[in-house]
């Protein structure tokens, strides 16, 4: 009898602990997964509830529209784009850019506010006598016609900064400016595809091989027209690298940057709570077996680091946050999500996805 009571107590305790890991205002998470699906994960149940098949192949990047209604997924197998209706979780359009011996390679991108054009950086691969690979080009994809409609050369000095894969993009809410966040910030006129401004702020190095850039993992942005994240800047004299928080007004092209401290070896973007006051990042120092990872909790009104906690990190991972800002997620290169409490920075639970996730990142919708 006593053993039975104890067993019930343990079961209750385990159940309560599992419930404690579930966010209060649960959302639906979308994640890219192998070999060609999008996982739909219910935060309230802590389980995958649906798999959306992607006919164009393996997802490598996802972008949520500013109104939160559509998810734009880019796929690598056939260089495709699939548009998902976030509410019905159905694919509403899909197409591939590969055409026989002519192929296009791109990694992520961003739709314009009207949802008609998709801006990205592409490479063209044409099979002639030999295979011909173009330099990186600005590319505009017509989502209605399902084809590449405009390309333009990237200026030579900008190629290194944004020519690689997984550069993050944003478009101003009036659709006039395209922002590319790489080794510097480049602002491009969407009408002419010419760079009109350059800002010497660099996205910090990512936390692993797959996080060379942030194509699929641009932080969840809940205020259209604004972008807040961590950046590195170097002084012009001794090139001492500092990290800090930059706030961009995408329409007016104004920004401010507040340095916080010496730049660590790697940072995994910035996740901001819905009230815009608290922010979290993952800082990595050391490499290989000597690698150590820490959560850093920042207070945005004062731009101060208020708490840090080390956690056992994976070789490669991605960093995310629950919709209500109470949970921090470590996921990627694996079939599970490690759930940390945002207040205590302690591990609370591990959710099994039953499916390996790709580096496409995570999109959360209510």
């Amino acid at each position, binding site marked *: 009898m006593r053993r039975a009571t104890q067993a019930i107590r343990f079961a209750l305790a385990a159940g309560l602990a599992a419930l404690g890991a579930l966010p209060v205002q649960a959302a639906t998470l979308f994640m890219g*997964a*192998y*070999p*060609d699906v999008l996982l739909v994960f219910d935060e309230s149940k802590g389980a995958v509830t649906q798999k959306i098949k992607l006919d164009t*192949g*393996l997802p*490598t990047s996802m972008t949520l529209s500013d109104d939160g209604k559509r998810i734009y997924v880019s796929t*690598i*197998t056939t260089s495709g784009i699939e548009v998902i209706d976030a509410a019905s979780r159905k694919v509403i359009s899909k197409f591939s850019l590969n055409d026989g011996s002519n192929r296009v390679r791109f990694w992520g991108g961003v739709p314009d506010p009207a949802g008609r054009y998709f801006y990205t950086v592409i490479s063209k691969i044409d099979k002639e006598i030999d295979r011909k690979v173009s330099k990186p080009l600005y590319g505009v994809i017509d989502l209605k016609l399902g084809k590449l409609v405009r390309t333009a050369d990237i200026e030579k000095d900008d190629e290194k900064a944004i020519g690689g894969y997984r550069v993050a993009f944003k478009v101003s809410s009036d659709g006039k400016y395209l922002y590319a966040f790489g080794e510097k910030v480049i602002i491009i006129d969407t009408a002419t595809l010419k760079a009109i401004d350059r800002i010497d702020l660099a996205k910090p190095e990512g936390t692993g*091989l*797959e996080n060379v850039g942030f194509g699929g993992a641009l932080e969840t942005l809940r205020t259209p027209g604004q972008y807040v994240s961590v950046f590195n800047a170097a002084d012009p004299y001794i090139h001492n690298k500092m990290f800090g928080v930059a706030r961009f007004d995408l329409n007016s092209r104004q920004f401010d940057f507040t340095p916080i401290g010496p730049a660590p070896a790697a940072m995994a973007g910035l996740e901001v709570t819905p009230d815009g006051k608290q922010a979290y990042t993952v800082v990595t120092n050391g*490499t*290989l*077996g*000597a*690698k150590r990872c820490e959560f850093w909790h920042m207070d945005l009104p004062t731009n101060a680091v208020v708490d840090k906690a080390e956690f056992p990190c*994976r*070789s*490669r991972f991605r960093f995310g946050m629950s919709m209500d800002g109470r949970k921090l997620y470590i996921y990627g*290169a*694996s*079939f599970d999500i490690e759930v940390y409490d945002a207040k205590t920075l302690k591990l609370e639970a591990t959710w099994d996805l*039953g*499916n*390996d996730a*790709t*580096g496409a990142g995570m999109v959360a919708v209510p």
Partner: protein
Amino acid sequence: MKHLRAINKKARRIDDAVTQMEEAIEAAAASGATPPEMEEDVVALQQAPRPHVPMGCTLSFSPGWEVDAGGGTAGLCQPVERDIYDCYVTCFWPVQVPDHVNYSPDWASNCATATKDWRNLDLVFP
């Protein structure tokens, strides 16, 4: 041997090639770089100078046999099966693992979780 001298064109070319190789080895040893004659040679991981190790992905298709960017195993995913897909999709090295983009898009169609069911990966015959 030092008293031998080349007397025809072919012998002189061999002599020149050997001299150039010896000079390159001396220069490489002075700078710490890999001597040119060793660039395509098979060398041990412990050997100095260290071999070039392609970062992250396996050198042979043998899940579990893999080295990280430093030539060790401390920087690998745990377990290493977690690295398979990153090699398959992003590295494009058809020798080590099938190439997703060009030749074997269906290699992993029956294997959603590499750690648990990597035995379901398809067989690929060249």
